[in-house]
């Protein structure tokens, strides 16, 4: 054999196989360890007194009565905690012009959103802390809140941070090709204003942190449900005046993240600062109401879009003007400008049109902070693009599938780029479209739709092509000055019995990072999965790396695991070759046994190799040292992002009398390159689709004009539930990235990227006989009835 082996060609490869996740049994037996399960000696529970106003000056805080409360350890105001924790500003240098104001762990003299912490009560139990928190007397002077993003920049509206001059956090414009010419020469122009409700990622486990400052060793250990332990290590050190080496971040089991847990939350910083101040462990577990008013929100865009099309179906130009409100501060350290920036990057992305103009503006508001949540910007860009494509098709009387077929970038056009400058290595829009058409029986559904309409049943088909940003390089955050690593490291070692221990900088929040790491290492080495144990989520005990976010785990951490596994295999074979007095190149490892390469002829077991290496090195040549630990790091360099692509479709029914929508079926064909574990990929897609369907139909953080969140409970904030979900059929096209040996791209956000877009398109398709176009989500019954002009009076 010659040349490098393909991952799929390895003996006993687990690449492309569905195998159970190694952590599954532990979790379903209830033996996981979440932060809220943890108790340390002398641990205090912190409860935050939070501002009931969206915008208010803090005139006075009287903590006297609270300090006398039963079990109370300390009551600390925002102004007092400044001694322990310095403020931060959420900007990145590559987002030119982005500005924000210093944010403190707790409000010091002014609260800028309903729910911002102003005072902390630490007690022996959560219940005692809640009792005492009610005794804290805060005197507020309510200020005029800025709540409507449409008017936030108008001169009569107050400026939230006077020192910034205005409420504009960020603005980006782009003009590519000849947009005006394209519109003037178009046969048809369609336009619409797309409205996206503010929503949030509802994690099953709320945010939780347990900080333990040990004055004896001058070290802070933080147990935290976070996606990025090394990032947090840096942040805790920086703002608590410590060296990074004095901070250890441990991330045990985490019940879901979706991007919610990759940010720096003021109350979590306050918890760490309180531990340092009080010299004892302090735990904070957000309750559900706190989650709704403090976990980052997302979306909340109003985007005007225009599309130019020729009568033959050729789309010639896109133009958008996007506006989003982000709360009073740009989130730290990833900033709250990324979503709008992504919208500008991604609109029109699947299509050949070269003329594109975009503007995005990001404004401050007195509402909860906004930041990156699963599929950052993608659902906005996809809904706008795909909504416009459907409007264009309608304007020229063309079938929605046909217009896509005529305009999607051809599968043989790669490498290529987009008008916004995105580089595409290899996408498969047409193969995906063809597969989708066959999976859903597009022509059959169109016939059924027509037949049912005659019976007064209104069903619709919606399509949504998408591209997805995965495997981000340093271009995402590193170049902007954030100490957020885009590389990952993996160490693999063989112990004295031949068992394999893997340490990775990836983290696990339920998506299967642990499983994919084990599969890749077992395949690279040639051992069975039961021999592999994966350690992750501990800055003291894993290589330095980014963690799990932005669909980077399989593509970046997976490749590092592959390279580390390969390196250890070489090291093991050197030991085996020395023992067997043959050259390592003649050997391989299969099922944990050293074999003659290309055969299954067994030469020596790994347990025996390990025994000799560790206990009888005296039997090996004097100049030979066995190295049974190998570490490798990986980061993409050739492409800033490994783009993936795909297409989704929705089939649904609209009850035109009640405005209710019934989702009947959903399809997603996507291309994430090499698939390591098909079940994990499919469930990532399905889970992502469900979150997108939640946005389409249900999820909405509803604020009143005073900036009060009116639906902060699980009874009033509707998350998607199983009963309303359709079957979600998943198909794949496989175009591996050639930048890595593994060839894996990300799959975590594809489902969320396109689900809402195709639902909205399907609703408009269903309502086509009524000549209405709805471009707002969530698609509530009231919204549909309004559009149809059907309401009782």
């Amino acid at each position, binding site marked *: 054999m010659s040349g490098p082996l393909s991952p799929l060609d390895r003996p006993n490869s687990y690449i492309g196989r569905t195998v159970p996740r190694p952590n599954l049994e532990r979790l379903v037996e209830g033996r996981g360890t979440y932060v809220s399960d943890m108790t340390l000696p002398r641990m205090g529970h912190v409860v935050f007194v939070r501002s009931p106003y969206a915008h208010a000056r803090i005139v006075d805080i009287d903590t006297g009565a609270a300090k006398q409360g039963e079990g109370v350890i300390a009551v600390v105001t925002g102004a007092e905690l400044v001694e322990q924790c310095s403020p931060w500003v959420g900007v990145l240098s590559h987002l030119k012009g982005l500005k924000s104001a210093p944010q403190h762990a707790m409000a010091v003299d002014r609260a800028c959103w309903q729910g911002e912490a102003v005072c902390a009560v630490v007690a022996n139990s959560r219940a005692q802390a809640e009792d005492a928190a009610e005794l804290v007397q805060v005197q507020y002077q309510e200020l005029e809140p800025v709540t409507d993003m449409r008017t936030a920049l108008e001169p009569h509206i107050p400026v939230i941070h006077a020192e910034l001059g205005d409420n504009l956090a960020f603005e980006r414009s782009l003009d590519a090709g000849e947009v005006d010419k394209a519109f003037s020469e178009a046969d048809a122009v369609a336009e619409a204003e797309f409205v996206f409700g503010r929503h949030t990622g509802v994690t099953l486990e709320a945010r939780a942190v347990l900080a333990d400052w040990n004055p004896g060793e001058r070290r802070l250990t933080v147990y935290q449900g976070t996606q990025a332990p090394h990032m947090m290590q840096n942040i805790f050190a920086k703002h608590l005046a410590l060296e990074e080496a004095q901070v250890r971040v441990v991330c045990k089991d985490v019940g879901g993240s979706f991007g919610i847990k990759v940010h720096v939350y003021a109350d979590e910083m306050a918890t760490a600062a309180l531990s340092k101040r009080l010299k004892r462990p302090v735990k904070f577990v957000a*309750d559900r109401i706190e989650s709704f008013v403090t976990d980052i929100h997302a979306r909340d865009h109003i985007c005007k879009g225009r599309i130019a099309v020729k009568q033959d179906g050729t789309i010639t130009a896109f133009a958008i003007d996007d506006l989003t409100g982000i709360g009073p501060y740009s989130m730290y350290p990833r900033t709250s400008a990324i979503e709008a920036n992504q919208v500008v990057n991604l609109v029109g992305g699947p299509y050949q049109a070269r003329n594109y103009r975009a503007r995005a503006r990001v404004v401050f508001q007195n509402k909860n902070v906004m930041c990156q949540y699963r599929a950052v910007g993608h659902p906005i860009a996809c809904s706008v693009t795909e909504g416009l494509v459907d409007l264009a098709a309608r304007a020229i009387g063309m079938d929605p599938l046909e217009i896509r077929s005529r305009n999607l970038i051809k599968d043989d056009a790669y490498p290529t780029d987009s008008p916004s400058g995105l580089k595409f290595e290899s996408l498969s829009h047409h193969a995906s479209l063809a597969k989708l058409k066959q999976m859903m029986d597009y022509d059959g559904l169109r016939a059924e739709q027509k037949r049912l309409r005659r019976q007064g049943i209104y069903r619709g088909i919606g399509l949504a092509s998408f591209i997805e940003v995965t495997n981000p390089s340093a271009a995402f955050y590193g170049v902007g000055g954030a100490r957020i690593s885009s590389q990952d490291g993996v160490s693999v070692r063989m112990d004295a019995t031949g068992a394999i221990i893997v340490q990775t900088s990836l983290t696990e929040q339920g998506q299967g990072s642990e499983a994919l790491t084990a599969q890749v290492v077992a395949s690279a080495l040639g051992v069975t999965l039961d021999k592999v144990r994966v350690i992750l989520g501990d800055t003291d005990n894993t290589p330095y790396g980014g963690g799990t976010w932005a669909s980077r785990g399989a593509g970046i951490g997976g490749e590092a695991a592959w390279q580390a596994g390969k390196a250890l295999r070489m090291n093991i074979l050197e030991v085996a070759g020395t023992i067997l007095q043959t050259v390592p190149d003649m050997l391989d490892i299969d099922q944990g046994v050293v074999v003659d390469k290309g055969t299954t002829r067994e030469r020596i077991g790994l347990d025996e190799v390990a025994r000799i290496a560790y206990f009888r090195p005296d039997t090996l040549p004097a100049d030979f040292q066995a190295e049974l630990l190998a570490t490798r790091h990986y980061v993409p360099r050739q492409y800033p992002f490994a783009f993936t692509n795909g297409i989704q479709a929705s089939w649904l029914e609209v009850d035109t009398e*009640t405005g*209710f929508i019934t989702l009947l079926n959903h399809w997603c064909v996507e291309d994430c390159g090499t698939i390591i574990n098909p079940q994990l990929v499919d469930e990532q897609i399905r889970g992502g689709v469900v979150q997108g369907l939640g946005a389409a139909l249900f999820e909405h953080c509803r604020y009143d004009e005073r900036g009060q969140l009116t639906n902060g409970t699980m009874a009033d904030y509707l998350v998607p539930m199983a009963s*309303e979900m359709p079957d979600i059929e998943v198909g794949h096209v496989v175009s591996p990235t050639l930048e890595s040996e593994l060839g894996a791209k990300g799959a975590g956000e594809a489902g969320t990227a396109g689900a809402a877009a195709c639902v909205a398109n399907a609703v408009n398709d269903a309502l086509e006989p009524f000549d209405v176009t709805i471009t707002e989500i969530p698609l509530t019954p*009231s919204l549909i009835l309004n559009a149809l002009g059907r*309401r*009782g*009076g």
Partner: protein
Amino acid sequence: MKAYAFDYVRAATLVEALSLLERAGEGGKLIAGGQSLVPALNLRLLAPQILIDIAQLPELRGITSDDTHIHLGAGTRHAELATSALVGQHVPLLQTAIRHVAHAAIRNRGTLGGNLAHADPASELPACMIALEATMLVVGPKGERRIDAIDFFKGLYETALEADDILVRISIARSPAETRVHFNELARRAGDYAMAGLAMVMHGTQPQGLRIRPVFFGIGDRPTLASHAARCLEQAADPMAGLAAAQQALSQDLSPQEDLQADADTRMQLARVLLKRGLTDLLAQGRG
């Protein structure tokens, strides 16, 4: 959030429960299944000094039937109602409605009496009780009394129960075979409180002399018998011929309220659709 501290006592008999309740005064609160009460405690919306647990009172247990009525102990769990053969045979409306009450875990614990006494305006069973003309047996310090369902629900979370009363039993006339029942609700997710719902009973078989009881819930501050609409249907030559007038008459019967789910106009539209679909279903049952 954690509930305020409170005391807890489990009563062994009805007499003991009444005496505990009287002694506790305003600080006392009954708990049975706790499916509405416990969330309210955890949200610190309520701060009782003592919870008196009546879930195991023998006087509140059991589903029985005599020649004319079926009797449901107030402590009967929703899940028990859903699987009771007696209920299925004699009050099928209840079993249809139960499927819409929250989720299985809640139905396993929540009780009929707790549901009715809580009087959530979007709750399914209070509407059924009015449609079925149920009678509530209530015991208080001054003894027993019977309250018709139509007089029991007074408003938002408000009933005819006094603070020291305990709802013991609900009696419902056995439905004759020709009685038709219909239940439907419009909720955005299965198990949620409905944006609008309808429990409807139709007695009689001939177009003339029908007695129709459409009771709406989730629309106003309490379950509401739409008597004007019912009259339009009953007095028409054929109920379907009276539908348009009945739909119009709903604006006399109902006072739709706005909340996070829907505004008043949407609710009225939904009520009219429910009435049409309910009547269509009832008439189709007759043809079946």
